[in-house]
């Protein structure tokens, strides 16, 4: 199928969002200090919106597999359709895994399925890279390649629009007045921007010697029994679970029941495999009593289990866990340690 490509000005895009906001909840990235946070679209705050940039603080899963989802209270819920604009390539690739877990297998998770169907995803190209970015090492790129409904690539005061799905095409067709024809020069500019950011990500990968999926393949299994190595990796871990919670591919959850005056409720809530209670059973048995075993479990799941069952390395190179870790545990350094078979203290930047 030939790619359908258009062009839209920033002003028209925000006008489109304003029109859509009566029937949709629209989330866009806002600048907050050095970071980008998703918040609800507010036409009054347009100047704080940054659709380019890099990935936001919240992972994409927050919208589709939210931290706390009510899954039982007897009442049907009505949800406005959602539009998320500004989703980056790293987050989009996490959908491969989230879809696999929640839509495939013995049973479909109807709450995830509904959110997924109810959410229109507008991707955007990264316009720069951060030191913690390493999507290229994880078979990704700093611009969306698939899994978006439409993608926007910023050029000066407008965006190149690429249609990625039937839902995306419907949106464009419903508001054709906003979408203008593009030129070959526009595409050349998009290509030049993409190459620039790709070089930046590659620079950070090379600078640190970050390993790629081909190098990582089999590394967890190979070093599985090197207890000292895993203990070293975990030496500054405080079991906060932040790496799990910010990770776009971490999917584990617990079921939480609550008794209220309005009746009994059940929630599906994010859980973290770094917590001591994660695998523990009521009788006290726990296959991962030691902290290093739990940290190892995280890497086993991402770099051994999912490559085996899904042919997918469950890391998108977004770098959120590196930023979130209060113990300065750097996933890139752990992977390097596994490939080299020894632990190198991270350089002080």
């Amino acid at each position, binding site marked *: 199928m030939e790619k359908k490509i258009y062009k839209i000005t920033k002003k028209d895009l925000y006008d489109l969002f304003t029109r859509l906001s009566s029937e949709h909840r629209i989330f866009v990235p806002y600048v907050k200090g050095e970071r980008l946070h998703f918040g609800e679209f507010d036409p009054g705050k347009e100047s704080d919106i940054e659709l380019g940039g890099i990935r936001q603080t919240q992972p994409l899963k927050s919208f589709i597999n939210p931290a706390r989802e009510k*899954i*039982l209270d007897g009442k049907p819920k009505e949800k406005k359709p959602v539009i998320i604009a500004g989703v980056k390539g790293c987050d989009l690739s996490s959908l491969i895994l989230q879809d696999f*877990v*929640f839509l495939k*297998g*013995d*049973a*479909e*998770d*109807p709450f995830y399925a*509904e959110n997924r169907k109810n959410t229109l995803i507008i991707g955007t190209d990264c316009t720069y890279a951060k030191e913690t970015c390493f999507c290229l090492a994880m078979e990704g790129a700093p611009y969306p390649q698939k899994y978006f409904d439409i993608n926007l690539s910023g050029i000066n005061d407008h965006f190149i629009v690429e249609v990625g799905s039937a839902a995306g095409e419907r949106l464009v067709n419903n508001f054709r007045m906003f979408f203008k024809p593009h030129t070959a020069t526009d595409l050349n500019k998009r290509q030049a921007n993409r190459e620039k950011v790709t070089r930046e990500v590659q620079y950070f990968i090379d600078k640190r010697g970050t390993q790629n999926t081909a190098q990582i393949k089999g590394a967890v299994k190979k070093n*599985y029994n090197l207890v000292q190595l895993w203990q070293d990796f975990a030496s500054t871990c405080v079991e906060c679970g932040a790496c799990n919670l910010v990770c776009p591919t971490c*999917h*584990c*959850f*617990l*079921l*939480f*029941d*609550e*008794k*209220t005056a309005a009746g*009994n*409720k*059940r929630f*599906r809530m994010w*859980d973290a*495999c770094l917590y001591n209670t*994660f*695998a*523990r*059973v*009521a*009788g*006290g*048995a*726990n*296959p*991962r*009593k030691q902290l290093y*075993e739990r940290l190892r479990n995280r890497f086993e*799941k991402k770099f051994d*289990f999912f490559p*085996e*069952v899904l042919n997918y390395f469950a890391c998108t190179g977004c770098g959120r866990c590196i930023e979130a870790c209060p113990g300065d545990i750097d996933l890139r350094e752990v992977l390097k340690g596994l490939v080299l078979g020894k632990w190198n203290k991270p350089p002080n930047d």
Partner: protein
Amino acid sequence: MTNPYAYTEAEILKVVEETHNIKTFTLKPRTEIGFRAGQFMDVTMPGIGEAPFTPSSNHNSKDTLDFTIMRTGRVTGLLHQAKAGDIVGVRGPYGLGYPLKDFKGKELFIVGGGVGLAPLRALLYALFNEVNDYKKIVLKYGARSPKDIVFKNEIDSWKAKAPHIDIEVSVDVGDDTWKGNVGLVTTVLKPGLVDINNTAAIVCGPPIMMKFVTFKLLDLGIKESAIYLSMEKNMSCGIGKCGHCRIGPYYACKDGPVFTYDKIKDLQKIWD
């Protein structure tokens, strides 16, 4: 929309006190819930939480379900306070259950420990349904003391089901009235009880017991692929999504909870 996390309400019809910390609850779900021996279900204390248990009743009895439950945590503590007439929730069944087809024509060497006899009771009833399809049924059951034996009043009746059934109960510590074997259940696993080349061994009990029973069975010459172990991990969602019960490449909830030893022997910490 089918909600895999929703439970069916079930009335507690009867509570039998098996030991000081184990009770058998007979539940009548509002709508019939079938299962096959070895599969598990989540039992909910409404508004409090749920926990996974393997029914201990005959899978041919469609109307009611028995759960034999040890008081050990938050949910089981509350369950133990429940009385006949109370309403709980049940969802499932999950997992694969015992491969009864593969057991046909074989000698079955069943080893249970403590409350681990619960799933085995469901298995035994399933075997009794078609008792002549199995060449021999040997059950060796170990309990801590005579007071800790579950299904006390039933075990003798199991012996009478068919001549090719051999049942022995052993206790770690005896008392004045105890006439049977005193010692860990491994002490009654002797050579010659079964034809090791045509045997399926089925083990369920506390992790430490399963570990040493497995080693003993291997010593007796039983094949790794013929030893069926109940890997009761922290199963929660039951459908391979929540991540809690993963052991190596498997989820205990959907790939188990019964695994043959050859499949899991190289994985870490299977006995914890």
